[in-house]
């Protein structure tokens, strides 16, 4: 995945100004920057929700034509959202099952009569989903409507839904916002495991520097639409621009 000279405007606001960077297969790539820097917008560009006015998105070595978001998702780009976007009216299990829908092929009629293909498919996919549920340790809440879950669990369910699609590129928008250290530790472990076990490439936005520095292979730093830093965590941490714009005076 490679972003080339992306520029994105909303009316008068230039949310992203001429940014290029790449994401290598199998790495964990972090995007950081102050609030309103355009990080989420960048993810939205990658997943096809926003169409940049200028620039191109290259995917797997070729420029990606302009597509509908669902087509992008079907190409193997999964994501979670900054403000949780679960389907509130459904149970956890159903939510995660929606993640598998690109893998289900039974026709309307087959689903209506349920026998045969539809049922077989349902059971097979259920097994896949149960694996992910096990992996993320959310077995106990399988049948709970997501509307009733606390924030942290919702984030986990969102991750489960994204993983269910078996994406090759996973975009995570602030997966650990609103969590305490313990939960962040759990979440970090999941992210690392996903990366290790499935070899999934991950792009991650996060404000917790501890997490970013520890997990990511490389970091892009954005500030008001511009790229001000790119490199390994160590390089970025010592970059003066980055410190001024974002990190502030380090504590600890």
């Amino acid at each position, binding site marked *: 995945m490679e972003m080339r000279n992306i520029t994105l405007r909303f009316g008068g606001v230039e949310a992203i100004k001429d940014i290029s960077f790449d994401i290598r297969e199998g790495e964990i790539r972090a995007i950081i920057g102050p609030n309103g820097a355009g990080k989420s917008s960048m993810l939205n560009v990658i997943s096809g*929700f926003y169409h940049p006015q200028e620039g191109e998105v290259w995917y797997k070595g070729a420029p990606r034509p302009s597509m509908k978001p669902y087509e992008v998702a079907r190409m193997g780009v999964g994501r979670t*959202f900054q403000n949780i*976007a679960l389907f509130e009216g459904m149970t956890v299990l159903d939510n995660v099952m929606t993640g598998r829908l690109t893998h289900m092929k039974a026709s309307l009629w087959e689903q209506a009569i349920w026998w045969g293909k539809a049922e077989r498919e349902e059971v097979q996919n259920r097994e896949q989903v149960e694996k992910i549920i096990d992996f993320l340790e959310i077995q106990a809440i399988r049948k709970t409507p997501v509307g009733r879950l606390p924030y942290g669990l919702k984030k986990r369910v969102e991750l489960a839904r994204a993983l269910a699609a078996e994406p090759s590129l996973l975009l995570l928008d602030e997966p650990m916002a609103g969590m305490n250290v313990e939960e962040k530790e759990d979440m970090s472990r999941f992210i690392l495991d996903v990366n290790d076990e499935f070899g999934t490439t991950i792009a991650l936005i996060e404000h917790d520097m501890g997490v970013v520095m520890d997990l990511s292979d490389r970091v892009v730093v954005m500030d008001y639409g511009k790229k001000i830093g790119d490199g390994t965590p160590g390089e970025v941490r010592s970059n003066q621009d980055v410190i001024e714009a974002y990190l502030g005076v380090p504590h600890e």
Partner: protein
Amino acid sequence: MLNKIFVAPFAEMVEAPDFLMQVLWEGLVSGVLYSLIALGFVLIYRSSRIFNFAQGIMVVFAALTLVGLHEMGVPAWISVVLTLGVMFGLAVTVERVVLRPLVGQPDIILFMATIGITLFLIGFGEIIFGGENKQMITEELGIPTGDFVLEPFGGLLILQHIDITAVVVAVLLVTALLLFLNKTRMGRAIRALGDDHQAALSVGISLQTVWVLVWFIAGIIALVTGIAWGSRAGVSFALEVIAYKALPVLMLGGLESITGAIIGGLMIGMLEKMFEIYWGGPLLGGNTESWFAYVLALIVLLFRPQGLFGEKIIERV
């Protein structure tokens, strides 16, 4: 056929400009009346995201109360004041009984509740006022009747005094409402409430006060509308269906927009009349007014999903 669609109507417009002017004027007047109902809708929608289906019946209810009180021997202007009192009572009741327990529910539930209110008011009103058609007390209220007959281009153009009055009143009402919403503390609170009632509660905006106020204003608008419509065709429960004319106006103009309600009303009023006269009647068997406004609104929405003046729907993830 093509001639009938593309040539003949325009030829007729040119040949009989006085008739065209009359058509436009009638459309304009109907449009103003549609707008008045739509205004009531907009106000309530803005403050609570409630799509108040009961606005139509409130018009009937207000007008019947006015006429009913007058029939009981109360002088016209005092009846107006008393009717306003009744509308205030209605606002308080609705707030207490319906809105307060339903706060925070999904839009469609509240919409359904307003249909419940509509049914209740129909039954209640018919018990009290009976189903007969009543005459609006136009003269008693000092509203001018009669007409101006003009002769532009040697033709004939009839302008009713009551229609002119309705137009003037509507303009005043809209101006007042716009000022109220945009320039006052209360107006800002109303708009805030529409966006996020939880947050509004948390900054200390009292839902009760705002809702009673808003429903009361909607009641005032209903009374004005009732007088205007009633002067044209009498007051009866059949008037309730005019709510259906206000819906497309709202959608076309944008649910939150006062300006939209006015422009939408005028557009729909004039265009539907022209369509019916020049195309619908001759070519389609007439009565196209029953759907034209909806189809027009639908077409506009296809290009602007939030209506002409509605607030842009913020879609972010």
